[in-house]
């Protein structure tokens, strides 16, 4: 089992400088994959999700090219070899 999690530059400092994290833990959903991220890189997870376990309002998570907002959210399935991409939403002032 191997899932790649691609980070935006703003999160590199919380991943010890890495731009891509590789998850070897068994996981079948985005939620499980992000939980695995949190085990190894808790500072990354703190910035992607709130303390209540919800993806932050202005953060987008993609599996391949599909946003989980338009799939099953955190319950969106992932498979071996998938790439999860975390992106800052196009918003701000």
């Amino acid at each position, binding site marked *: 089992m191997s899932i790649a999690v691609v980070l935006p530059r*703003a*999160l590199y400092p*919380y991943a010890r400088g890495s731009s891509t994290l590789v998850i070897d833990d068994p996981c079948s959903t985005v939620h499980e994959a992000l939980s695995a991220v949190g085990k190894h890189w*808790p*500072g990354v997870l*703190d*910035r*992607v999700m*709130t*303390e*209540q376990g*919800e993806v*932050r309002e*202005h*953060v987008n998570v993609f599996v391949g090219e599909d946003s989980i907002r338009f799939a099953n959210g955190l319950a969106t399935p992932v498979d071996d070899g998938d790439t999860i991409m975390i992106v*800052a*939403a196009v*918003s*701000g*002032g």
Partner: protein
Amino acid sequence: MTHPAPKNGDTLLFVGTMKGAFIFSSDAERNEWTKHGPYFPGESVYSLAYDERGGKKRTFAATRSFHWGSNVRRSDDFGETWSPQDRMAVRFPEESKLSLTQVWQIMPGPRDEPDIVWAGVEPTALFRSRDGGVTWDAVEGLLKHPHRAQWTPGGGGMCLHTIVPDPSNKNRMVIAMSTGGCYRTDDGGATWRARNVGVRAQFLPNKYPEFGQCVHKIAHNPARNGRLFLQNHWGLYRSDDWGDTWTDIANGVPSDFGFAMQAHPHDPDTVYIVPLQSDEFRCTPEAKLRVFRTRNAGESWEPLANGLPQEDAYETVLRDAMSADSQKSAGIYFGTRSGKVYGSADSGDSWQNIANALPPVVCVRAAVVGGGTSATNAA
């Protein structure tokens, strides 16, 4: 980027903006200022505090990334380095089902308990740190307050923006929220009572409810124990009994709408405000940037305009964007949404422009190095 290297007696001015923080440094005379920063570029900094309790010289900054959440950072070397920020320090407990939006107020605790620090946050809650700001816990008595379901957000969000500890009684504290109003604990935070008698809620059918007022700021000078001044969403008030009752003091101001309010650091009868035209036009009346000062606890107010623009000045000063230093000749400071910062080294009689084009200013804190602690509205 340079960082301040002040000596005792120098003056520091911490400025939080929508796009980062700045520190301005000067000596005791405060004629010339040096700018340092931006710190946390791109993040909003709604609260700053300076704390010398326990022999440290610590700056606190509440930072918020639009995308990645909010944190509280610490620096013990005037901004040159900041505390590691891997984990988010201020977190609501899971059972609350609440998530932190941002920290609106950082307030150092009692002088003889240098590790106690308070934080007021959005959504409305009070957090306490017992280790100098490293870890934080929500104050349960307020988190589970029976009024919570009826507190509603104002334009800036549902925030606890003002913390006024009683320096003579560790069990007593006044807090203010928008909306909700003023609350006080007399038992160390276990229970909280609404303290809004006499404060008008212009925007509600019942103009004088028990709670629900939109308090914008409370000012306090510890030299007059129990006296509070309140800038409301319409209305200026004074209390002489720790908020049990409030008296209207909007005597001779062009508008009693506004946000910022600052107590003089030495004279408990002197308070400063920056009136705004109305809730629909939140700019300085007549396009003149004027601070109003009372020196008799609100019986009358005088405009202060020497050195401030009096033409085409459509300015807004937000609730935490005013401060005072504790120099003998008191310094009064404020920042505007248009990114200007002004200061007075003579208690408001004359003003100088310190910064002219910062991002929108949301927080100003002044401190004298070696002088103690920059409290929000206290000496």
